[in-house]
């Protein structure tokens, strides 16, 4: 494994029951980069994140994070590795029975023996980094979607992880929050020396901040490259995706019998 690579996925296949989701994925993320995994909804992007986090084990191939094969770790080893990972869930997944402050302090209290003063300082630093120091005493129910996402980000970086994963960080945000979140991901990656891995279908926003992009379709990687390469790509699938065209290699219609047959026109004619 190349020392520059934090995440290395080689020949990974995975299926839920009999339904294959991923069929042989190869992917690497280098330290300090923002890497995006794109694809239409339901193509197995989130499954990929769960594989990296060790919540599920690959059927074939290996997932390596910082040199350790995630699928072969036991519970203790997995938990040790996860302390060095942060994950931002689609809608934040904040603990709704705790205040913003307690949410960010959660990992510090669970995993360290720091005195409450030190925890307070650390939490306020993390909240300041996402611009929400003033919201420390609010409850998650009082936050807007964008704010909740930023709190979740502060929580994900509370233990200064080496890798942060984002599951659809842009979904359901207004244009201002969208820009704020995108910039935040880029800035935190650069200033904290993180590696960021984001799963998204928001092409325009993510292409502004990413270093490298993988396109996943039907369980395989169909295209990869830097942001510029992707924008200029001539591949029909990537073109459709980047420009948001309704029809193309990804059909508008879900597979169905002929329209006329469904409406019973042929029967009437007969």
């Amino acid at each position, binding site marked *: 494994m190349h020392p520059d690579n934090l995440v290395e996925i080689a020949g990974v296949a995975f299926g839920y029951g009999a339904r294959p989701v991923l069929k042989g994925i190869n992917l690497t993320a280098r330290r300090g980069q923002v890497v995006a995994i794109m694809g239409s909804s339901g193509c197995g992007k989130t499954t990929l994140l769960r594989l990296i986090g060790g919540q599920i084990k690959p059927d074939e191939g290996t997932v390596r994070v910082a040199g350790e094969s995630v699928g072969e770790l036991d519970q203790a080893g997995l*938990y040790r590795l*996860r*302390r060095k*990972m942060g*994950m931002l*869930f689609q809608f934040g997944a904040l*603990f709704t029975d705790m205040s913003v402050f307690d949410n960010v302090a959660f*990992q510090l209290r*669970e995993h360290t023996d720091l005195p409450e003063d030190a925890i307070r300082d650390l939490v306020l630093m993390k909240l300041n980094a996402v611009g929400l120091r003033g919201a420390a005493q609010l409850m998650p129910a009082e936050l807007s979607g964008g704010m909740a996402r930023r709190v*979740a980000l502060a929580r994900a970086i509370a233990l200064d992880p080496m890798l942060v994963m984002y599951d659809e960080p842009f979904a359901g945000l207004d244009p201002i929050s969208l820009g704020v979140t995108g910039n935040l991901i880029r800035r935190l990656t650069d200033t904290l020396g993180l590696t960021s891995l984001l799963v998204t279908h928001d092409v325009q926003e993510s292409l502004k901040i990413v270093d490298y992009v993988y396109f996943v379709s039907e369980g395989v990687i169909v295209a990869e490259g830097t942001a510029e390469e992707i924008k200029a790509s001539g591949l029909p699938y990537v073109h459709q995706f980047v420009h948001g065209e309704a029809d193309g290699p990804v059909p508008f219609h879900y597979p169905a019998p002929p329209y006329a047959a469904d409406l019973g026109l042929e029967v009437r004619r007969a």
Partner: protein
Amino acid sequence: MLRRAIENLGNRTIQGVWRMGFATRFFLAVLLHSGTAFRRFGLTIREMYFSGVLSLIIILVSGLFVGMVLGLQGYETLQTYGSEEALGILVALSLVRELGPVVAALLFASRAGSAITAEIGLMKATEQLSAMEMMAVDPIARVVAPRFWAGVFSMPLLAALFSAMGVFGGYLVGVQLIGVDEGSFWSQMQSAVDFEQDILNGVIKSVVFGVAITAIALFEGYDAPPTAEGVSGATTRTVVTSSLAVLALDFVLTAFMFRGLN
């Protein structure tokens, strides 16, 4: 038609057995990961507030009314045999042996059990449990086990409060309202109610009910499909299953406990 029905039945049986196995594994995991619930007892105390303290009002009020009704009905029946003085025995024995543990458990199942299922189910649906796992914190140890022990500790206290309130209610109606002799009300009660045989067995019952209800509620929440429909279905199932479990367990326990008596 018949074939499909048989197939359906077989499928359901397999599903049921599968779920039973999963539930057992879950229960063992909860017991195995209970260390945190005791090491950081604050977590358990917090849950005792939600399952115990918040159930107090309904338990106390119901206990009082059940005792008052027992006083009225018991008096009506005993009067026919000219033994009104035995009212104390009737009220106390029915409460301490049966009604206290059972009715308190049924109320607990619908008040606290459903709340536990809904909370765990929603935490799962909103990925809070996954988030915790990704933060290297075991949700069974951090979220499930404290709730389990809080329920187990709360249940006997609630049942005792229910019985005590019921005896007081029976006393109010029987002695204060109808005019049964106060002295014989208490003394007959005391000579008939045995500490080990009646009160201790009642406490044992309520502990068993507490284990059953919280285990079912936590499992249903943990197993709920992560949708609004799934969580609401799981909440209903918690109330139905745990009520049935309480009544069935009550029969089994009573058969064991009082077989030697008669």
